[in-house]
Structures are given as C-alpha cells and as structure tokens.
C-alpha cells in the first residue's frame, strides 16, 4: 500500500484485509462497550490521538518533508504524503474560508470501510472512521499545531461524499507561522 522508503531499510507493510478487519473489530467492540454513539466517537478520537502523537515521528522520519510555511501546505502534505503513505489513498483538498485556516479532505476511496455495507441499526451518528480525526489532531499537536478535526460529511451516513474538516486554531508555538492574510 505504501511507496518503498529508501531512507529506512526495514519498514513494515500489513496485509490489507487484516488491517481493515481489525479496525472493524475495534469499532464493533467499542459499540458493545458504549451505548451512545457520542461515546464511541469520543473513544475512537482519543485512541486516534494516542496513535497520532506517535505516528508523527514515524511519518517525519520516513517522509523527510520540508518545513511548511502555511496551513495550506500542511494540509496538502497530510493529504498527498501522509494519507498516501499509511492508507494508500490521496484525498483532495479544499480550503473553506478566506482566512485560510479551515480545510477539507475529500475522501473518494476509503479502505477502512471496504467491508462496511451500512452502519448498524441504531448507530446513525457513529463516525466509523473517527480514529482518523484523532490521528490527525494528535500528529499536528506534536508539531505545535492545534486543530479541530471532525467528519463534516460521511458516505456511511448517507452523504454524497466523505469529508474530513481540519480547522487550524491559534498556534501553540507562535513564532514560526505568523502570517497576515
């Protein structure tokens, strides 16, 4: 699923079915543990956050991206390098506001939902892939960027596309990224 990385001699790929089925089992178990969709979503986000804070190191080591100078660049890197590296897909990026701190990733394909036909009955507010939001949020925080990351639209809920919204908040480390308009 990923490009070979020339910098790291040993890097691991996982069987896609195993990965997708395991994610599904994780969500199913959380649904058993928590009655409310909000709780499942919250825990998926929390788990994702934990993963993201560690994944960022792996990402930076393997991708050798240059320092970014704008939120737009960062979002492009998330979509074109990170998503490609870990999930084998490249979401498209749109910017949602004129102050250029709100972006959307439009996922055309999503391997995580490959075996999901529809959300279970009574689970209409479940954000199945909420782990991804936590991962992005955790990873960004480790590079001193605070962001809100949520699903704005979800095909599993009947929307026409699956869209992740990233809103960059006030920076945690203000020095480097000060930009006026």
């Amino acid at each position: 699923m990923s490009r070979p990385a020339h910098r790291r001699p040993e890097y691991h790929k996982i069987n896609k079915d195993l990965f997708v089925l395991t994610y599904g089992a994780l969500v199913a178990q959380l649904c058993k543990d928590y009655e409310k969709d909000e709780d499942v979503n919250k825990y998926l986000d929390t788990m994702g956050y934990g993963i993201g804070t560690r994944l960022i190191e792996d990402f930076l080591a393997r991708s050798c991206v240059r320092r970014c100078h704008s939120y737009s660049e960062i979002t492009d890197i998330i979509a074109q390098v990170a998503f490609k590296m870990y999930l084998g897909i490249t979401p498209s990026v749109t910017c949602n506001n004129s102050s250029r701190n709100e972006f959307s990733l439009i996922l055309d394909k999503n391997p995580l939902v490959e075996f999901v036909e529809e959300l279970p009955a009574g689970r209409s507010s479940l954000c199945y892939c909420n782990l991804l939001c936590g991962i992005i949020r955790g990873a960004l925080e480790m590079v001193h960027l605070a962001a809100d990351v949520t699903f704005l639209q979800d095909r599993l809920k009947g929307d026409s596309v699956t869209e992740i919204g990233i809103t960059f908040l006030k920076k945690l480390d203000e020095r480097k990224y000060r930009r006026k308009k």
Partner: protein
Amino acid sequence: MRAEENGRCITKLENMGFRVGQGLIERFTKDTARFKDELDIMKFICKDFWTTVFKKQIDNLRTNHQGIYVLQDNKFRLLTQMSAGKQYLEHASKYLAFTCGLIRGGLSNLGIKSIVTAEVSSMPACKFQVMIQKL
C-alpha cells in the same frame, strides 16, 4: 481489581481476534482446495495463514495426534519490539490474546472448534497451544 480488569481486557482482545480470524480465513481460502484433514488445516495455519498475517511461518509445529497442537514462533512479530529480557514478560499476554482469537476464529470457520492459549517463556519466542474440541 486490577487482575479482573486485565482478564476482561484480554477476553475482549481475544474476541476481537476471533472475529477477524473468521473474516480472514474466509478470504484466504476462497480459492484453495478442500483440506484433507485436521493436520492439513493446522499446517495451513502454520504456513500460509501465519505468513500472510505475520510475514513469516510458524517455526515449529508439534502434535500428540490426539487433538493438541503446539505452534512455536521463535520471533513473534508483536513481541520483537519489546525488550528481550524479563521486563515486559507479564504484559506479553495482552499482545498474544488477539492472536489466540485469530487462530480460534480461523479454525472455527473451517469447522473446527478449539481452545487456544499462549505462553511466553522468553521474549520474543512464544507458543500457541490449540486444543481441538471434539463435539
């Protein structure tokens, strides 16, 4: 309290592994020929299944030919990133539970009911014990 919670977690992990094992074996064996016998199935688990999941085969398979199999993996992929000494030995069971379920689930969808346990004597080597339940 701690031990009880730990036990519940391990059960949940094992159940998750079971689900995944069922799904995986379905996809892996779609186009394979029918298995000759129980031993044939266990060999499949040790070779093809283990290779697809862990990128290596089981290093040693032993059986008493009466429904008990011991699968030995000398370098279990989920344990190799941990210190090889005794430091994390007590935590190893959490990392094995999912895989026990994986084996149990895979066998289940091949028509075999079993109990699967695992033990680590020295990291990263571990043994999975499969006890076939005759109905």
